[in-house]
C-alpha cells in the first residue's frame, strides 16, 4: 500500500477555502484510509467540523481508488450535476490520487491534504510501515521500514486526522436505548450511532460507507410507536426515540435468522469473522433449519480475486461497493426469488469483465465469498489488507 501522512492543519485547510465555497469531500477507501486519514468516518468528521464553521458541504464522495483515473472519471460522471455546482474539492487521498482528480477536474479548486512517501505495508503491531521510500523524499532505504510516527517527526507533519486539532461538536440529542439515556447525533443513522455508543447490533448487509438496504434483517430492533420490528440500519434518529435493542423476542428472531442464513450457505461461512462472532454471542451450536447445499463453481479467473458463490449470503455489499466506490458495476444480482445469485459482468468469468482490481468488493464481503488471491486459501477472519502488500499496480503508477 501507499504510505501518506497528513500535511495540512485544519487552519491551513480553511485558509484554502472561501466562506461561500460549495464543498465536496472526496476520499479514497484504500491506502490512505489505513494510514488513518481518510474513509467514510473521517469524511463525516471533517464534514461536521466544516459545517460547524459555517461551510456548505454538498457531498461526500467515497472512491475505492482515486489513483485509477478511469474510476475518478466515472465518479465525476455519476454525479455530474453536483460536481458542476461545487466550487472546491477537498481530497483525502495520496498525492497520486490528487494528480488523477486534478486531471479530471482541471478547472476546479482541488485541495490536497496529504504528503505521500512511497509504498509499504501494514503490520498489526506497528500499523502502516513505509518500506520503499520515493527518491524525492530523500529517505534512505531502511530494512525495518519507517513508521508513521517517525515520518511525522522527521517531516514536521500531523500524526492524526483533522478532528484531533479540534473536536467536532455536531448537534446531539438524547434518546433512550434499553432503558438508558444515550447521546446521539441528530438525524444520523440509528445503527451507526448505537455502534458509536458501543451498543453492538448484528448487521451483515449494512456498512456506513455503502448505505442501507435492509436485506439481512439481523439489525431489527423495537422502537416505541412503530409497528413491529424495524431494521436499525434503515432508521433515522428522531427526537425522543425509545429503542429496545435486545429482548427475548429479538434474540429469538436473530437466532433464527442467523440459522436460516447458515442453512442457505452451508457450514463454511461459519468460519467468517462476523458470522462466527454472532454465533458465539447467541450460543448457536446447531441449526434448526436445513437446506440442500449449494454446489456452485468457484471463479478464480480474476488476476487478484477469487469468488466463491457457495459462501455468498447475498447481502449485496460487493454489489454496492463495486457500483458506488469503484463506479464499475461489474458485480450484480441475477435471477430472482430463491434462485438469486451474484454474477460478474453479463454472467461471464470475472477475468473478462471490466474489473478495475480495486478490491473494494473483497474488502466489504462479510463472509469471504470474494477474497484477494494471496489470502484466499488461508481464509482468515481478519480484513484482507492486514495481510498483504498488494499495491503492485500502484507501485507501477509511482
Amino acid at each position, binding site marked *: 500500500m501507499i504510505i501518506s501522512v497528513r500535511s495540512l492543519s485544519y487552519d491551513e485547510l480553511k485558509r484554502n477555502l472561501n466562506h461561500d465555497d460549495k464543498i465536496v469531500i472526496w476520499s479514497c477507501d484504500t491506502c490512505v484510509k489505513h494510514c488513518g486519514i481518510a474513509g467514510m468516518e473521517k469524511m463525516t468528521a471533517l464534514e461536521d467540523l466544516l459545517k460547524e464553521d459555517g461551510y456548505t458541504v454538498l457531498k461526500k464522495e467515497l472512491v475505492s481508488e482515486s489513483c485509477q483515473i478511469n474510476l475518478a472519471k466515472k465518479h465525476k460522471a455519476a454525479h455530474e450535476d453536483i460536481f458542476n455546482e461545487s466550487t472546491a474539492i477537498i481530497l483525502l487521498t495520496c498525492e497520486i490520487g490528487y494528480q488523477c482528480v486534478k486531471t479530471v477536474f482541471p478547472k476546479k479548486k482541488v485541495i490536497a491534504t496529504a504528503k505521500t512517501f512511497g509504498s509499504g505495508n501494514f503490520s498489526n503491531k506497528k500499523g502502516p510501515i513505509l518500506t520503499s521510500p520515493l527518491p524525492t523524499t530523500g529517505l534512505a532505504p531502511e530494512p525495518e521500514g519507517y513508521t508513521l510516527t517517525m515520518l511525522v517527526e522527521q517531516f514536521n507533519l500531523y500524526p492524526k486526522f483533522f478532528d484531533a486539532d479540534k473536536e467536532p461538536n455536531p448537534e446531539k440529542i438524547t434518546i433512550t436505548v434499553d432503558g438508558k439515556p444515550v447521546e446521539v447525533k441528530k438525524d444520523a443513522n440509528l445503527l451507526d450511532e448505537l455502534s458509536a455508543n458501543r451498543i453492538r447490533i448484528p448487521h451483515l448487509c449494512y456498512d456506513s460507507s455503502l448505505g442501507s*438496504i435492509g436485506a439481512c*434483517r439481523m439489525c431489527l430492533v423495537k422502537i416505541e410507536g412503530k409497528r413491529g420490528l424495524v431494521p436499525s440500519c434503515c432508521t433515522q434518529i428522531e427526537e425522543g426515540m425509545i429503542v429496545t435493542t435486545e429482548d427475548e423476542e429479538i434474540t429469538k428472531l436473530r437466532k*433464527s435468522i442467523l440459522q436460516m442464513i447458515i*442453512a442457505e450457505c452451508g457450514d463454511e461461512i461459519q468460519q467468517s469473522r462476523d458470522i462466527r462472532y454472532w454465533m458465539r454471542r447467541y450460543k448457536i451450536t446447531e441449526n*434448526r433449519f436445513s437446506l440442500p447445499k449449494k454446489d456452485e463453481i468457484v471463479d478464480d479467473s480474476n488476476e487478484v480475486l477469487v469468488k466463491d458463490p457457495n459462501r455468498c449470503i447475498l447481502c449485496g455489499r460487493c454489489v454496492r461497493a463495486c457500483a458506488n466506490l469503484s463506479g464499475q458495476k461489474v458485480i450484480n444480482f441475477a435471477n*430472482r426469488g*430463491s434462485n438469486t445469485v451474484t454474477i460478474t459482468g453479463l454472467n461471464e468469468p470475472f477475468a473478462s469483465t471490466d474489473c478495475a482490481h480495486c478490491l473494494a468488493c473483497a474488502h466489504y464481503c462479510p463472509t469471504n465469498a470474494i477474497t484477494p488471491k494471496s489470502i484466499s486459501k488461508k481464509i482468515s477472519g481478519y480484513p484482507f489488507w492486514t495481510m498483504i502488500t498488494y499495491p503492485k499496480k500502484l507501485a507501477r503508477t509511482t
Partner: protein
Amino acid sequence: MASCTIAAGADEVLQSINHTVNLMGLDVEITPVGCMGLDFIDPWIELTKKGYPSVIYANVTPDIVEQIIREYLDEDYSSAYAFRFRKPDGSNVPSLDELDVWKNQVRWISGKCGIINPESIDDYVAVGGYQGLKKCLDRKPEETIDELKKANLRGRGGAGFPTWIKWNICKEQPSNVKYMIANCDEGDPGAFMNRLLAESDPHRILEGLIIAGHAIGAHKGFVFVRAEKPLAAKRLLKAAEDAREKGFLGGNILGSGYCFDIEVFLSAGAFVCGEETAMIAAIQGERANPLQRPPFPAVKGLWGMPTIINNVETLAHVATIMAEGWEKFAALGTEKSKGTKMYCVTGAVTRTGAYEVPIGTPIKTLLYDLAGGPPKGKTIKAVQLGGPSGGCVPADRFDLQMDYDSLQSAGAIMGSGGMVVLDNTNCMVDMARFFLSFTTAESCGKCSVGRIGTRLMHETLKRITNGEGTADDIELLKETSDVMQQACLCALGRTASNPILTTLRYFENEYADHINSKKCEALVCKPLVTYCMDSEKCKGCLVCVKSCPVQAISGEKGSTPTIDQTKCIKCGTCAEACPFDAIEKVPGMICEKSVKLEEGCTQ
C-alpha cells in the same frame, strides 16, 4: 373481444360474422366490445336491430353464426342465452336481469364492460365518460379529495388503505415534481379483473388516473402493466393516444391549464413487481426489489419524488365516483367499507367469471348464486382468497361477509379479489405447496428471511406431499412462518405463509393424513396414492400391460395382471386404458385390496 374471449375463439367467430353478413348482403355495423365478465358464455355475441329486442347468444362457434342471424331475423329467439333488457312476452329465454349471475351483481365500475368498444373514445364519452374529470378540473384539488373522503373509498389493490388519506399526504408535500402510477400488474394466480377492466374499459382507468394526478399535483403518470397482458397494454396505449387527441390528456387539459401525460410501462414480470416500492425501482430501470418503508412513496417515491400508486380498480372507482357522486357509492357496501368490489371466481364452479358485488356480500352468494356452485358430482371444500398472500376459507364458513376486516379475522385477505374454488378433488396440502412454489420463485430474493424462509417452507411442504413428512415438519412450518411474519422486508414475505397457516387451521386433518397415514384422500399427491387392480372387474385382456410406459404391469392373458408398485410412476395411463374400469386409484402408499388377497393366499 378481450383476451379471455379471444382464447375461447372470438376471432374466428368475428371472421365468420363478417363472412356471413357479406354473403347474406346485410347492412350491419359490427362492433367488437370488451368482456362482460361472464367467462362461461365466451365467446358471446349480441344482436340488435331497430324494433327487435337486443339478444345475447352464448358459446357461439363460427359454424352456427349464420343460423343465429337467420333465427334472429325471423324473430325466433329460442337458442339465445338472454335478452339484454326486457324480454318479449311469452319467451322462454330469460332477460339478463332475471339471471342469478346478473341480478346479484352491482356493476358500478364494470357496467360498461362488454357494452362499449374499448378502442373507441367516442363510445366512452357517449356513456358519460370524462364527465367526472371535467368536474374535477373545475374545482380545487381539495374538493376532489374531500369528495373521496366522503365516499370513503379504500384501495382495491389489497391492503384497503383509504385512498383520500394517501392522496392528501402526497398533496401536502412541497415538491413541485410528483408522480402518479396506476398499478395494473396483477400477478396473482386466479385474478384477472384488472386485465378485464383495462381491456374492456381502458378510458375509465385513464380518467381516474388524470383525476388523481390533478388532485395530488402530479404532471406525469405511469400505467404499470404486466408484460404478459399485451392486449391490455395496447388498449391503454390507444386510449391514451385518443385522449391526447381529444384534449383529455397532455398540455392544458380541456382548457383548464392543467397538464398531465402518461406512459404505459411494461412490467418486468415478477409477482413482486406489484409491490409499490419494487414497482418504483422497476420504472427507474433497476432490479424490482422492494425497499424498507418508511419513507412511503407518497413522501419519497419515484426518483425520490412524492408518488402515489393506486390499483386500476381503485382508479376506475375514482372516475365513477366523480361522475356519479359519492352518495351513490357510499350507499353500497358495509359500514366500514363502502362501494363494490370485483371478484374473479375460478376453479371448481360451473360459472367462472369476474363479478362485481357490493362489499360485504357473503362468500356463499358469490360461489353459489353467481358462480353456480360446484360442477355436478363435486362438493366445494374451500375457497382460496387473495392469491398467494391470502388464505383459504372452508365451506362451513361461507356465511362470512367479504369485507377487509371479516376476511382478516378468518385468516384470509381481500387481496386483489381472486377466488380459487377448491373441491374434494383438491388437496389442501398440495395447494399450499403450489402457492409456496409460486412465492419462492416470484419473490425478489433480496431479504434473507423472505428468500430463505419461502424456500424452507416450500422444501418442507414438498417433503410432506412426497410422503416424507414428519410431525416436526408442522412445527418447522409454524416457526418459519413466525420469523417471516415479523422480520421480512416487504408484505410478500410477511404474508407468504398465509396459505399454510389457514390450511393448517382449517384442514389439519389433511396434513395428518399426509404425515401419519401417508395418504392423500384427494388423490393429488402422487407418492401418496396407489393404483390397484380389481380382480373381480378384470377380464384379463392385458390392455393395461401394453399401455404402461414403464413396463410396471405384467401378467398372463386371462388372469389378473399385477402392478409392480416399485416401478409404477403413477401416470394413470393404465386406469384410462382399462375398458372395464378395473384399475382404481386409491389413497395411501399400499394397495389394501391386494395386500388382503396376498394375506389370504398365505393363510
